[in-house]
């Protein structure tokens, strides 16, 4: 791979000590990528690689980059610090080591490098396959398989009838009929009470002048109309009305003769 070769060149150049050099860390996708590049430069199977040698190469590379005052991304420095620790741990006598052992850490690093390397190779092999549209080609001008949808319209006779019913129901002018409420009109009451009162001689309760068997709304209507009717009859001087107290029964009788009127007038005077 061209990029990998470039990377190795870039790396090897500073070791050779040339003074004018541009090292671009953009060449690597992070420290692991750089480590893998360095590991591959050992030209041995990654399983055989010397992690200690790899660590030294990395640290040396970072050191030379810093000597050239290159901007180093933080993760390269973090990796450098960690590798420096790993290196010292690997060099210490075994007895003084803590968990996890530096051998394990080294092994993990090695396994990671193997995995990245495996995927890098796999990607390259994938890209090198006969790819559709690059190496092999589909038909340039396929006729195409066309599926034409034919609508099968569904409706039942019931739907048809309902629809027509709805149209009719919706569009016909609705006629509103106000139902007549059962009432006794004032005229009816005047006529009835006027006719009946002549037949009585003495004080008679108002209710006695109502038609028999009325109840509910009609009963109340008859009572109200009859009451207004006797007031009218009284105004015409045809009946007398008396009530002992508020809400007490109302009595009426045919109006007395003229003298009573005169008496009242005299009294008023």
């Amino acid at each position: 791979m061209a990029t990998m070769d470039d990377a190795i060149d870039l790396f090897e150049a500073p070791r050779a000590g040339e003074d004018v050099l541009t090292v671009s860390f953009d060449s690597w996708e992070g420290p692991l990528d750089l480590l893998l590049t360095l590991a591959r430069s050992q030209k041995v199977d990654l399983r055989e690689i010397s992690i200690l040698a790899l660590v030294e190469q990395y640290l040396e590379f970072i050191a030379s980059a810093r000597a050239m005052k290159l901007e180093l991304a933080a993760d390269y420095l973090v990796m450098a610090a960690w590798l420096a620790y790993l290196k010292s741990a690997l060099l210490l006598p075994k007895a003084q080591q803590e968990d996890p052992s530096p051998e394990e850490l080294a092994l993990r690093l090695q396994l990671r490098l193997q995995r990245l390397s495996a995927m890098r190779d796999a990607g390259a092999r994938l890209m090198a396959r006969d790819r559709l549209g690059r190496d092999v080609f589909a038909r340039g001008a396929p006729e195409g398989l066309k599926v034409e949808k034919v609508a099968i319209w569904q409706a039942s006779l019931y739907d048809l009838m309902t629809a027509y019913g709805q149209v009719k129901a919706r569009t016909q002018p609705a006629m509103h009929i106000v139902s007549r409420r059962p009432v006794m009109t004032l005229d009816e009451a005047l006529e009835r009470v006027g006719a009946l009162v002549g037949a009585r001689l003495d004080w008679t309760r108002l209710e006695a002048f109502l038609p028999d068997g009325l109840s509910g709304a009609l009963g109340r209507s008859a009572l109200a109309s009859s009451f207004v009717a006797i007031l009218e009859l009284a105004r015409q001087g045809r009946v007398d009305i008396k009530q002992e107290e508020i809400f007490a029964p109302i009595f009426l009788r045919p109006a007395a003769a003229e003298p009573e009127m005169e008496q009242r007038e005299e009294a008023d005077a």
Partner: protein
Amino acid sequence: MSRFDEEADDVVRAIEAALFASEEPLSVAQLRQTLGDVPDLAAMLGQLAEDYAGRGVNLVERGGRWHFQTAPDMAHLLRREKDEPRKLSRAGMETLAIIAYHEPVSRAEIEAIRGVQVAKGTLDVLMEAGWIRPAGRREVPGRPLIYATTPEFLTHFGLSSRKDLPGIDDLRAAGLLDPVDLAMEGLSEQDDAESPLEMDEEEA
């Protein structure tokens, strides 16, 4: 004749691949551009066409340019029809009902009865379904197209004739007419007549 599966030589294979991959028919000259100088290209094309003659795909020449196309007798496979049951919209249903009860009617008459405009698409759908057809023009100003139902309509709805359509009374009895208007009672009689309905004044 060559046996495709054994003997196709590389030039024939190249012609085949080039024609297959091309987005347009290729002339002999264009093929030469792709394949380099091939002696007897025309003869090879002819032979390739012959090889493919009995296949589902044929190599054909049109106006000096070559291309593969599917065999003509396979055309029916490539344009497949698929039934798609669809329910008529309410507007469609109402329009159809009005046509059935009042036919022949113009669109303006349908609108007057529905009290709502009738989209052109609605009539199109009903015609596509095969239930209505244009039935001439009304001899009034503007000579509007009038519509009537078709025999397919009767078949689909299981009617032997339009007289089988339930009358207004039947609809009312079935509870399909909510607010009742006595004035419309004569409608079912008008149905039987072939004459256009004397539309109400709102029709104008």
